[in-house]
């Protein structure tokens, strides 16, 4: 490890810590906005009501939603890795039974030594499609999972390279950010579904508010302001799941290149990761066991989306993974440079 790469590692760790904090703050702030915004709209709509009618003064919604968001974030941090593993149906290898599992355990232990992180817990997903992912909150609480298909398909060196890639994610704390993101994306999707029903009641209420302020001629400025506020508020309800999805996609692409490079650094054998990626790419079937929510954690897009194969503005915005061809080309470049330095020949 040269001085330069270790500095990059610290920067990357720091950036991931910061981004995780920002993610949680953004998540809580978003819910606070939804809650207190709703309170404010409700307050405006009941302000002109007769004295005997209900006046919404105390911001119940805001406090409740902020509390829910805080609890969710805490819960996601505490149980995120478990939830991700559970959603893929992975099972832990405690006592390896067959030679394949034995080999996997050995390979993970080797890579843990090479990367200088504690040995993570090892999981197998019984899926015939080759794929792998890592999750956890820090190197001490990390998990590496591979599919049965990967064990069947890859040679020992290739398996080593793939595990090295995953431990790269563990070492630079990508796992923390990405697991949090997976857990929070799931939570938003769930809450959105539940809250849509509440919102339907709320639109009537909001509409009533708008009408009320238009009727009151005295507060001319409040009308457009209220209307804009209402539109933005409703839009944020509708867009919440889409925004979180795009966030999940944007956050994961660049770090794949970095994890590839770290794998090459651990194994000193970039060509084996290149050939592993090629084999994984060749297996066209999508990984059935891994759902959309955990897609950005995997070494290759488990959904088998065509977008991943392309580079460009559109793909940049919507694909979870960089184009495989480019990753392989970069690794080959590293491998050939290494061979040249050692005076070997390119096979």
């Amino acid at each position, binding site marked *: 490890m*040269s001085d330069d790469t*270790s500095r990059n590692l610290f920067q990357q760790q720091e950036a991931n810590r910061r981004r995780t904090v920002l993610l949680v703050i953004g998540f809580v702030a978003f819910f606070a906005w939804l809650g207190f915004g709703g309170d404010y709209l409700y307050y405006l709509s009941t302000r002109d009501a007769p004295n005997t009618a209900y006046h919404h003064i105390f911001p119940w919604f805001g406090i409740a939603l902020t509390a829910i968001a805080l609890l969710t974030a805490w819960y996601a941090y505490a149980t995120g890795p478990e939830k991700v593993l559970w959603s893929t149906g992975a099972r832990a290898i405690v006592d390896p039974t067959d030679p394949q599992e034995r080999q996997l355990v050995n390979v993970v*232990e080797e890579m843990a030594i090479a990367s200088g992180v504690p040995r993570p817990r090892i999981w197998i997903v019984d899926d015939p499609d080759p794929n792998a992912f890592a999750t956890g909150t820090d190197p001490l609480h990390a998990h590496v999972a591979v599919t049965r298909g990967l064990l069947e398909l890859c040679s*020992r060196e290739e398996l080593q390279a793939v595990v090295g890639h995953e431990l790269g994610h563990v070492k630079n704390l990508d796992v923390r950010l990405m697991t949090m993101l997976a857990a929070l994306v799931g939570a938003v999707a769930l809450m959105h579904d539940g809250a849509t029903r509440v919102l339907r009641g709320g639109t009537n209420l909001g509409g009533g508010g708008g009408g009320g302020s238009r009727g009151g001629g005295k507060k001319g400025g409040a009308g457009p302001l209220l209307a804009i506020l209402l539109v933005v508020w409703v839009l944020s309800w509708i867009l919440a799941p889409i925004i979180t999805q795009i966030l999940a996609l944007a956050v994961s692409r660049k770090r794949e290149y970095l994890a590839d490079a770290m794998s090459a650094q651990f194994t000193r054998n970039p060509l084996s990761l290149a050939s592993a990626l090629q*084999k994984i790419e060749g297996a066209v079937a999508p990984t059935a066991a891994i759902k959309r929510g955990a897609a950005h954690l995997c070494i290759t897009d488990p959904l088998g989306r065509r977008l991943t194969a392309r580079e460009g503005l559109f793909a940049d915005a919507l694909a979870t993974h960089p184009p495989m061809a480019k990753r392989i080309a970069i690794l080959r470049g590293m491998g050939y440079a290494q061979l040249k330095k050692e005076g070997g020949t390119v096979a």
Partner: protein
Amino acid sequence: MGSIIFLVVLVVVVGWLIGAYNGLISLKNQTLNAFKQIDVQLKRRHDLIPNLVNAVKGAMEFERSTLEAVIQARNQAVKVNATGPEGIKQISQAENALSSALQRLMVVVEQYPQLKATGNIGQLQEELTSTENKVAFARQLYNDTATQFNTKQQQFPTNMVAGLAKAQPADLWEIEDQAEKAVPQVDLSMKPKV
């Protein structure tokens, strides 16, 4: 005004001193820890070898010399009781000898298909491959960390603090045996090459 500038410069210099000193100490401890990791893996290897030899002994009566070389190299390596990065030359010599003896044994085992066919040997082979890899990776991590430590303590201006942090250049773990360098990596993987 002059005293304020002086104070600022002093704070900056002291801050840098503390940072550089702590950085060196942290690297020193990382180097020591990486060395401990090699030790752990070497011990594992020493414990594994008797099992391996017992497993192949019966089927390889006529390869007695290869087996004996392995046992001898192993005993030699266990006997070296140098510890810490200072004794690295001694340890690495004995361990490198053991590595080459083991590699010869594995080449020989490859030539006996009936030996490979029994599941036991396959398993042992996997264990041995893994152990060799673990030793190699522990060595790699140690060399990387030690190189970083050495570079840091020799670079200006950190080298001015090196004496204060009692930083000594750490020896790297080198493969001295020229013959071993020339030997191509034996492929012990259980999967066929593609």
